């Protein structure tokens, strides 16, 4: 249990750092996909099968692809900026380190967390999950559906580009009026 975890965790973190620091944006996106895959592996390791597969399906199959498309559509893949860091990057880094330090301190200090290991109880099946979702959590599920629909429509509207298309010739459509030189 320890060794697989270590391998997955190391890979995921390295991929995460790469995703945040590489120069070529497409590489960043591919590393992001690797992070998602690592997390999915971790979910599987933790016995959350359904979530793990959903993670792959949604994050790798959709979000990573979306990011890639955005990169290509904004032409940022080809243009290499002289620097990829923002002006206040030192500040950002310091903040991140501080946050991390605080979190670690809290985790290690917490008594509820410390030393807790895996319980032996049986894990729920997909059927249980479905039953729960369709009964107790039906309202959040519906709201979620509504949100997704709204988000899709909104995204399409935002990203839609109004442009005048080049009209193909149709029977009877006239060309330019005669202009004699």
């Amino acid at each position, binding site marked *: 249990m320890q060794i697989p975890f270590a391998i997955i965790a190391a890979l995921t973190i390295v991929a995460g750092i790469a995703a945040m620091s590489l120069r070529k944006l497409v590489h960043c996106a591919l590393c992001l996909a690797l992070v998602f895959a690592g997390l999915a592996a971790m979910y599987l390791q933790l016995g959350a099968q359904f979530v793990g597969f959903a993670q792959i399906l949604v994050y790798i199959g959709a979000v990573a692809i979306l990011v890639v498309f955005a990169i290509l559509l904004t032409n940022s893949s080809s243009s290499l900026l002289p620097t990829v860091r923002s002006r206040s990057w030192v500040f950002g880094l310091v903040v991140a380190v501080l946050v991390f330090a605080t979190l670690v301190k809290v985790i290690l200090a917490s008594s509820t967390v410390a030393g807790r290991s895996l319980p032996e109880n049986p894990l729920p099946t997909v059927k249980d999950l479905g039953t729960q979702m369709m009964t107790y959590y039906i309202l959040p599920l519906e709201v979620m559906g509504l949100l997704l629909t709204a988000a899709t429509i909104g995204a399409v509207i935002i990203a839609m580009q109004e442009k005048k*298309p080049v009209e193909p010739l*149709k029977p*009877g459509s006239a060309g*330019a009026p*005669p*202009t004699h030189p």
Partner: protein
Amino acid sequence: MSELLEAPAAGSVTAAPRNYEILPKPTDDGEVGGDLLEVAMGPHHPSTHGVFRMDVVLDGEQVVKLKPVFGYLHRNHEKIAENTTYLASMPYTDRLDYLCSMTNNWAYALSVERLTGLQPPERAEYIRVITAELTRLVNHTCLVGFLLQDMGALGTPLMYAFREREIILDLFESLTGSRMMCNYMRFGGCRVDLPVGWLDQARSALDGYEEFLETFQKFLTENEILVARSQGIGVLPPELAISASITGPMLRASGVNYDLRKVDKYGIYDRFDFRVPLGDHGDVYDRYMIRVLEMQESVKILRQALRDIPGGPIVDPKAKIRGFRPKAGEAYGRIECPKGELGFYLISDGSPNPYRYRVRPPSLINLTVLEDMCLGQTVADAVIILGSVDIVLGEVDR
């Protein structure tokens, strides 16, 4: 214009002729960049039927600019012909439109006959009609195959087309000795007479061909994908077609009734009963269908010609093989080859070599409107529009 369009075409006939004088140029050269993608399709590209190149500017998948680039098969046919005798150019004409050597031969022979006044005997005229119409069958069948290939059918229509082509090529081979490069016509007649039994072979080949046309139609014409891919695509309005000197099936698909077999009545075409199919939309589907219908009419002509062919000599006795020197003068002769009007313009200065030898290539001139037809369509459409124009690079570049 109304006399051109035998029946009212869909909403396109107006009293005053519309002029397509200078093509509307929707884009300038400086505009490319940003979101637009420049793709040079060709000269080695699977879709361009040889070594043709289209410099395409794409907005997404949409064509906003398309410039044809020629010359990758410019083999200097005219220059070579001006440096050699009249007869020696005949085999070179085979290699112009290398799918239809017989009609090329005929066009050249006709021009020289115009220049010199030679008159082919009746049997030769019949043989010319038979071979030319067989050539038309070969060309149109192959074109449909290639068009479907461009549309992405994995070779099956092309295979069926070539299966039938082989049958006709067998006929050509047993008549002229060569499958493709027949070099068959001579000034004032034909080279050799029909071998024994050739007419019967031709008749049975024709029976098979009719059956093939039916199944081919069943196989393709109703196919939803073909219909959806080709209807309304690459529309060519009749006025533009006339202004751009478009000829052949492409012109008739736009609804203009102009077939040199009817207009010039060259050879003996006035003796045959056949009709000229006309399209109303001028799109890729019409161009495909006009060719299919023309094949049916060709079969009709062939039936009559094979029935009526008389005996007799096959060459004008005045014709000479060696020492052929036409009087000074010039002539322009043209025929309806499968791709359109193929003309030869000859200027003679009395020497054994032509002073000026010019080919009027239908394929090249039919490409004039390629950009007009492709603008606003997707790149996949541009490919099949090019396919429906029916070009052969040997003739485009010469």
